[in-house]
């Protein structure tokens, strides 16, 4: 069980890293818009304009 004395602090370090990363992401504005990204993936960026009227 003594391995826990090593693993739990390690887990805490990872946790601190995750919190830091999230704070950075919030600070850089990545979470300012929570509505658009949800639908963005289903929109293709390009669609050829119908050139001759038939498709």
């Amino acid at each position, binding site marked *: 069980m003594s391995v826990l004395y090593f693993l*739990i602090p390690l887990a805490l370090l990872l946790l601190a890293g995750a919190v830091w990363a999230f704070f950075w992401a919030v600070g850089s504005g990545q979470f300012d818009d929570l509505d658009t990204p949800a639908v963005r993936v289903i929109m293709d960026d390009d*669609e050829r304009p119908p050139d001759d009227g038939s498709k």
Partner: protein
Amino acid sequence: MASADTCFHCALPIPANCDIRVEIGGEQRPVCCPGCKAVATLIRDAGLTRYYDSRDRPDPGAVRPAEDAGEWQVFDREDMLAAFSTRDGNTTEATIYVGGMYCAACSWLIDAALRKLPGIANADINPVTHRLRVAWDTSSTGLGRILATLADLGYKPQPLAPDSTERPERAEQRLALKRLLVASLGMMQVMMFAVALYSGEFQGIDADMERFLRLVSFIVTTPVVFYAARPFFTGAIRGLRARRPGMDVPVSIAIGIAYVASVYSTYTNGPDVWYDSVTMFVFFLTVARYLEMRARHRSVDRSAALASLLPNTATRLEDGQRRQVPVAQLAAGDIVLVRAGESFPADGAITAGRTSVDESMLTGESHSQEKSTGDTVVAGSVNLDGIVEMRVDVTGTDTTLGTIGRLSERARYARPAFVQLADRVASYIVVGILALAATVAVSWYLIDPERAFVITLSVLVVTCPCALALATPTAFAAAGSRLSDLHLLVTNGNAIETLSHATHIVFDKTGTLTRGMPEVVQTDTHDPEFTAQDCLQIAAALEVASTHPIARAFTRHESALTATNIEIRVGAGVEGIVDGRRWLLGKAGFVPGAAPAAADETATQVFLGTGGRIVATFTIADTLREDAANTLKNLEKMGYSLSLVSGDGEAPVARAAATLGISDARSSCTPDDKLSRINALQQQGEVVVMVGDGINDAPVLAGADVSIAPSHAASLAQSSADVLMLGDSLHPIVTLMQAARRTMRIVRQNLTWAIVYNVSAVPLAAAGFVPPWLAAIGMSTSSLVVVLNALRLSRIR
């Protein structure tokens, strides 16, 4: 997406005898006007037709591409760039308020369209705040081109000065997200350690390991208490200082003493720690707060709303030279040139020229006003047909427009607050909980001092108003998100509560019950050579260049004909050559041979003549919305009293009221009159809902208990409204009233459940049968029940 008789682009009904189509996705789609056709064509040709598949509601603004691209070119000038952007090396960054966007598809469309421009480094658009932050390479593209692109898509771009771009809401949202994350991660970690500790109690655990796990829990809980739970402590202190303790007080006490006791127990190796209860408690409350905040932030940006009524730039005459300057740089005494179709940038008087002015948004009056030298004009009104010079007298917040803005701000604060009622009730509950906890503590101290602390803590956790706190915001959040699918945008979370006990609904006329734009309701021909259709086509061709609202009634009809030599006669009409004939279109005195029919103030007659004789008479009126009568009947059936207040003249108001069966109608009301009418109703104990769209409605919208504005409303009216109706129908009001009643039923169920749970659990906890961990689980389950119940609201139709 749109049915056969509504416009494919904007979903407004297509006027009779109008046949304009656009080919999109291999099919001919009907649209309502050449403006929509132009926008739809632009979207198609840019390869962006995906927009039509993924937008969740039709484009609400009646859109029209900017006819004059030159308007935007001035923004490429150095001094303009300096006023509206910040430069960093080769890239320039600006923030633009984009009026008229409502959904994620809009933001995608803007993003995709901008990325097709050369040199755009980054475009970051927020559909909630309507702000676009764009960075571009100055050498390959200009701000003017970006703005023109947005305007061509049908939005109303407005560059913002750098200092006004930071909204406090954004900082608040970011902080709340961080707190939520700390609380949730902390809760999960501590829960894991707690499981180990609890199973240790049953199976036996190494004493060192127990101490270690407690220490680790302490390390994780500390930021949860001091960072994530901070708003509860500050809220509690604020509440105590104001002598109105809210829910924050017992919450803070529970968090505080559980944390301190756990730390003490960890230090002295005591029998129990309560880190799990603390973190779970903080997490649930933080979630509730976060949901509440999101609903609150949906409101329209007020500062930008006021400014968006004014033009971005004005043409100032400096020693006879014309110079485009930002409106903010205007000062009293300046002489400004205002062209037809522009809005006046400031209050002042006309010094040269003659024109007619549309003040309908400011006064509600549906007819335009004739103005010439010496007459006063107000900022925000639209110059319809002549070029005039005006002397600036008053600018900025001192203008009539600014005053209306201030009036609505004041009315908003004076609004009777049901929220405060909830807070007052809460402070009684709080005092009760504290008294109960103290009694329990003292009694148990006398019975068994060892257990007194644990039991008191259990009582505080069990009585936690968690479910109580979640009951209302979750129901409002669920109802709000469902209503937005039904084309109703709730911008004020408390609006739903107030709506559910509303008794009286007051409507504005122009633009709310009526369409707010003139339509040709009747065409009488006096010459067998021309059919009604021919006459409409000729009129549409003649009016193509005009910005007068009457002209819009004609230009909605696409014309196969083109007019040449068009000349606009200010205040009279327009003349031009179509098919080799000289045509006159305008008022009775302008067209020879025209005889106005019996005077009827509710409609305007326009005459078409050629060669000295009259060919056709058009009757133009602002017609009632198709579903107005039906909607009002439904509302009456639901038990609401209805009234009509309008800034328009007596005849049109009386006529509309008669058609709709409203007995209480008032005409010629100023914004102040409207507000005092509402206040009088409120004094009689009525809970008043106001539905209106004009700038003159803004104060009354803010002063009513709840206010609803259609999406085409002036942005100032929108920002004063609690609920925005998207689309062009009044029927959503009925849905909204029903949904509000249903939401409050759910809220009452939730509150009942929370109270029943608390009341039955408290005696058990006080008797010492509930350890703190069980109390925490009970509390979470009860919160879960409340949340699931609230989610039933997402099935409203």
